């Protein structure tokens, strides 16, 4: 096995020479992270694959609602060098489309279906990307989007049971009513008692 730090150096040169990197970060001797432009991703993956990174370990997204962007994350691995490479690229959040990487890594098929289901990203080139995978009959915005409100969804989908009748042990000395009144008053003081 070759020295792992020199592996990192080799990949760094390779990537730096071929692509305009927005950011590059060496996380440790086994992990390197690059931020690329969206259009460079496919070329970068091909280059990496032909350089021994045969395995696509992971494909997922990060939602950045304030930037109106979704960050795509691809992690590829080289079994001979024990090295993981993360590729990051941001795409538009309102119309999230990312060409499929199926021709490069056929194993991305299910990852892309999952990413579509949880983040709403479309993957043209993957014939099945919009087929249901995990969430049966999902009828809301993709649940991993940060503006998805799990509480509201639970309220909509599941009845709320009142556990009080079965579990509550209360009496006249209950402190709850006073506590609630006090809290309401204190909160009213915040806006000057008038709204």
């Amino acid at each position, binding site marked *: 096995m070759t020295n792992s730090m020199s592996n990192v150096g080799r990949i760094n040169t390779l990537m730096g020479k071929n692509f305009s990197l927005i950011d590059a970060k060496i996380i440790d001797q086994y992990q390197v992270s690059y931020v690329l432009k969206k259009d460079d991703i496919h070329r970068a993956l091909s280059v990496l694959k032909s350089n021994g990174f045969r395995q696509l370990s992971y494909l997922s997204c990060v939602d950045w609602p304030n930037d109106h962007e979704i960050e795509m994350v691809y992690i590829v691995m080289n079994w001979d060098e024990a090295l993981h490479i993360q590729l990051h690229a941001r795409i538009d959040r309102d119309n999230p489309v990312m060409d499929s990487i199926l021709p490069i890594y056929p194993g991305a098929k299910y990852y892309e279906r999952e990413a579509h289901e949880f983040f709403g990203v479309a993957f043209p080139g993957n014939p099945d990307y919009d087929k249901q995978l995990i969430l049966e009959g999902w009828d809301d915005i993709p649940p991993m989007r940060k503006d998805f409100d*799990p*509480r509201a969804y*639970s*309220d909509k989908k*599941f*009845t*709320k*049971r*009142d*556990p*009080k009748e*079965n*579990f*509550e*042990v*209360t*009496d006249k*000395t*209950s*402190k*709850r009513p006073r*506590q609630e*009144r*006090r*809290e309401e*008053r*204190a*909160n009213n*003081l*915040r*806006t*000057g*008692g008038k709204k």
Partner: protein
Amino acid sequence: MSKYRFESIFNSWRHLKYVLKKPITIPFNHIFTKKNAGYLHDNSIIKTKDKLISHPRVAADNMRGFHTNDWEECIGCGTCEDICPTEAITMVERMDVKEQAGAHQARPVIDYGRCCFCALCVDTCTTSSLKMSKEYVYADSDPDEFVIMPEALWLGEQVEDGWVKDETSDLLDLKRVEMEHADIDDRKQSFVEIVRGYSKEYAKQEAARCVECNVCTSSCPVQMHIPQYIKAIWEDDIEGGLRQIYETNPLPGVCGRVCTHNCETSCAIAVRGEAIAIRWLKRYIIDSAPTDMYNAIINEPVSEVIDASVAIVGAGPAGLGAAYYLKVMGYKVDVYEEMPLAGGVMRYGIPAYRLPDEAIDKDIDFIKSIGVNIHTNTRVGKDITYDQLETDYDAIFLGTGFFKPRGLNIKGSDHEDVIGAMEFLPKVRDFERGKLSLSDIDVKESIVVIGGGDVAFDVARSATRLQMLKYGKSDVKLTSLENEDALPASMDEYIEGGEEGIEFHCGNGPQEIMQKNGQVTGLRLWECLCIFDTEGKFNPEFDQDCEKIIEGKQVYIAIGQSPDYEYIPNQLKEKITFERGKIKADEFGQVEGVEKLFVGGDILRGPDLISGVADGHRSAQGIDAFLYENAKKEKVSKNIKEMRLYAKENTPEFTPKQKGIK
């Protein structure tokens, strides 16, 4: 070309090789717990006994299975309910749980029809009582059976822990934002305030640690709106915070510095980490509120809308507390104070390095500004008679405190160099104000302080400062009956006092003040074996063989203070019941047998400043109940009506500590 490779039709014969192999299917009873095995048994047509045998396979480590909650540890804070993304958790009141400081009588109930097993509730649990087990199988035909109140045992069985939070997943910030203190060498030389106070950034950071669980509130003698004003800091709403604070405490600047902070002792974060710096956050609001913001608290002049007047004797915490709330409720209030400055123990007891005059001024100026008359330099019994008050006012409140030094009756204690704490401390404050010069206070080069409470530390640390100014070096020894770990004084005092060079001789009882040629030379100590006898009464026992003599040219006695009732006329004294120096009165401070007389503070309950404010507030409520019915009332605005309502509504209840709950 076909999508599938052509294969021999005999290929399926290969499955035959499995015919004689043992199946790898896992039987149900290897998965199910006893209850579920029983359920399966009950619901199957063929009932065989082996269905009842259950020895479930253990799930993986970190499995996020069904919850367990140890009720002994759980404090009902409800943080799990707040964080639950699916609203699966509901806090249900359980009055059968014993009431205690720093806990709600409530426990979580989980609806497993909603729970998504995300474990956020475990990661945020303040006590780590809520855990997730490795149990993941549960079945029932009744949907209501999926609403479960977790207990230490899962379905009555001890089960293995699954998901356990670690440092990375713990969502609470257990470390307090550090407070800047004055440098030791600098502070020893002067009476400059030690605690510098939080900046806005630091205050917000500290406020962000609060989980708003509200368990602290019941431990505060005045039940301040603690989580709410901390939230106001976080949202940078100083005015809102100030209004919330004044709802329950008219001396916030003082309390923000020297309160005994029972709230912090019962803080939920303190179960595993460092309590939220509630006291300093309160101080931050007061310090950063400009004087003109105070106008917003009471946005209408409080005129005397009720034709009844109250005299208050003593402008200490209790007296000012009563005065403030009586005024807010619409009464005419006059406060009589013997000393030249209002504030009582705040002005003449606590040293300036803990509580500077400016902080007291800010609080008292506001109380004055709403129309409370404070007559200083007026001692009842000398400048005005008690009988005069009785004829002029409809009710009288006494909050005269414990201001007389309590003596120590040992050999040699009758000497001019044996000094009581309350003789010494007022002089120190007057020195800081420039009313006395250094030569007016007789502090010798080496001294011994007897006592282990906050007052003893006030004496020791003030004397250190005076010695530094006078001699350039300090020599202060402190001795107490209690050992270092059981000192009644706060931990800060012990640590800071030690930093300032105080020598501790804790766990010893004073026996004799040594003298030579008429001069005090030291103190003879015997080791203290125990302070209380088997009945819990104060009755210290000493070991004569463990004797030591510590040297000092002066001995200061700070073993408690006593009341001064000289101003009360004798015929009134006969009607009052005194119990160990305190006056007997009901919950609202109304003295038995003397209808129009109310008392509060040290002479009723004690032991600290904020309990005095609480007594004052309760007495204001009691006085209102006593006077309101028969007094003439003016028509009032909606605002004043509301203020009156909430002054009554916020009347403090007794804290668990005051009720004697440990």
